[in-house]
């Protein structure tokens, strides 16, 4: 069966060139511990530092400002918890927004239970934070602003440069989760004006289990997550994941070298997908900003049908995608991102996310556009809702016969 992978925001295949580099650091004489003061250790040390230079190069940072972590979630936790605990003497207020990844949102919420005051800013219908509103929420106790660069569910790119300027003006530490944008859209840490920036390897044709955190020199941040050895200049305990680090370095280097070309290719495929879907169906809406969005990101809500049904049907056609419906989020609620954007829950259940990658072609897009028609038509024919049958309902959970078991 033809297989089309449209879920690159979930994870990407490891580029064979990356895998090749990694393999070198599993065997032979390259297996050493970078801390060791001998031949084997030095080989590993050199590889780690070269990878650091490559990652730093993509965002024009000093390599000393980059440390390696186990991935985006650890980078977010390290940044947020680190700043919070280290700067408690200065204040206890943290600002974030409602559409952040759970790695950020749940970390901030956890701090909210530990004596910190939190502001979770709303977003507009594109999923965009309002900078003026953010400015108004700043108090003399604000120690950290954490706003993501690009949203993973709807692709919207946040006004990070403006927020960066504001944070600098007010002397507040600014973190951004750039897991979805790093290596996909060009930026430097100085352009963005960020103090901390989270990176993940496996969104970028690198391996899983590796990430990085950019820490601007002078940022007040103590390592608070792990107690252990003095690795990463006392900023991240634990023996370095050398093959992973080498893989991330190679992946960053490759992404940096053909970002412009890749960006153009992704944007063309993305726009073909968007135009194809919007022109084929009624009662479908693009979610996220139509223009200020990731070049590889497409997301829709189809009315009257539920996301998981669409995913199952697409999977049977060999197409891998994702959705923010309750059934796919693992909880009973549809995506917090779509709800925060003001999309009604019944419509958020019909969300479909298609995220493109370097392996995708125009033929893939054509194949999808051909496949999706009958799927939507079939599922809508099973649905009790239609344009004639009012979809919006005021029925609350109290009127739902199964609500009690659902809450149990």
């Amino acid at each position, binding site marked *: 069966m033809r297989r089309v992978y449209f879920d690159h925001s979930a994870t990407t295949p490891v580029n064979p060139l990356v895998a090749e580099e990694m393999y070198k650091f599993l065997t032979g004489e390259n297996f050493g511990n970078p801390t060791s003061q001998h031949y084997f250790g030095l080989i590993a040390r050199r590889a780690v530092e070269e990878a650091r230079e490559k990652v730093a190069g993509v965002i024009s940072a000093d390599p000393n400002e980059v440390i390696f972590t186990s991935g985006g979630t650890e980078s977010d936790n390290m940044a947020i918890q680190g700043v919070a605990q280290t700067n408690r003497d200065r204040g206890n207020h943290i600002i974030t927004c409602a559409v952040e990844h759970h790695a950020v949102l749940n970390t901030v919420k956890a701090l909210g239970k530990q004596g910190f005051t939190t502001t979770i800013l709303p977003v507009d219908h594109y999923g965009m934070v309002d900078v003026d509103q953010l400015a108004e929420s700043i108090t003399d106790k604000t120690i950290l602003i954490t706003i993501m660069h690009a949203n993973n569910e709807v692709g919207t790119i946040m006004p990070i440069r403006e927020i960066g300027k504001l944070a600098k003006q007010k002397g507040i530490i600014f973190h951004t989760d750039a897991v979805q944008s790093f290596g996909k859209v060009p930026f430097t840490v100085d352009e963005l004006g960020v103090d901390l920036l989270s990176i993940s390897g496996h969104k970028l044709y690198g391996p899983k289990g590796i990430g990085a955190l950019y820490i601007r020199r002078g940022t007040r941040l103590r390592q608070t997550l792990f107690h252990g050895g003095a690795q990463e200049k006392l900023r991240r305990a634990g023996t370095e994941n050398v093959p992973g680090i080498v893989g991330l370095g190679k992946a960053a280097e490759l992404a940096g070298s053909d970002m412009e070309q890749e960006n153009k290719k992704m944007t063309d495929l993305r726009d073909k997908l968007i135009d194809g879907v919007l022109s084929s169906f009624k009662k479908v809406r693009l979610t996220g900003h139509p223009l200020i969005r990731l070049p590889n990101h497409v997301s829709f809500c189809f009315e009257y049908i539920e996301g998981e049904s669409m995913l199952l049907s697409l999977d*049977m056609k060999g197409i891998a995608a994702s959705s923010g419906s*309750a*059934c796919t989020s693992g909880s*009973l609620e549809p995506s917090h991102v779509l709800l925060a954007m003001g999309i009604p*829950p019944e419509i958020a259940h019909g969300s479909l996310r298609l995220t493109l990658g370097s392996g995708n072609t125009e033929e893939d897009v054509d194949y999808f556009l051909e496949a999706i028609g009958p799927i939507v038509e079939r599922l809508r024919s*099973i649905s*009790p809702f239609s344009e004639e049958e009012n979809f919006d309902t005021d029925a609350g*959970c109290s009127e739902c016969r199964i*609500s009690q078991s*659902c809450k149990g």
Partner: protein
Amino acid sequence: MYSDKVMEHFTNPRNVGEIADASGIGNVGNPVCGDIMKVFIKVEDNVIVDIKFKTFGCGAAIATSSMVTEMAKGKTIKEALEISRKDVAEALDGLPPQKMHCSNLAADALHAAIEDYKSKSV
């Protein structure tokens, strides 16, 4: 994640549609929760002679809807009322644990349709 039987019913659901002169209609769930099911029954001499459904929901919701219509067709009202959520799940060779609540509403919809029929025929 799903059994072959669930996938089979999801792919080829039985008894999809509506009955214009239904003896009873059951409507359960809530689109806010992501699952809603409408069951139409036609009753003659205390027997469900025809049954149709329309469902908005995930794969499990569609499969359970299809299965319950198959199970109830030809049954007496009394027999149909005995079909439980558990029976439907078992007939589908089981459902993933997280689907046992919200998406397993087909038996409820059937019972609601029977109640509706009863209230009309009193």
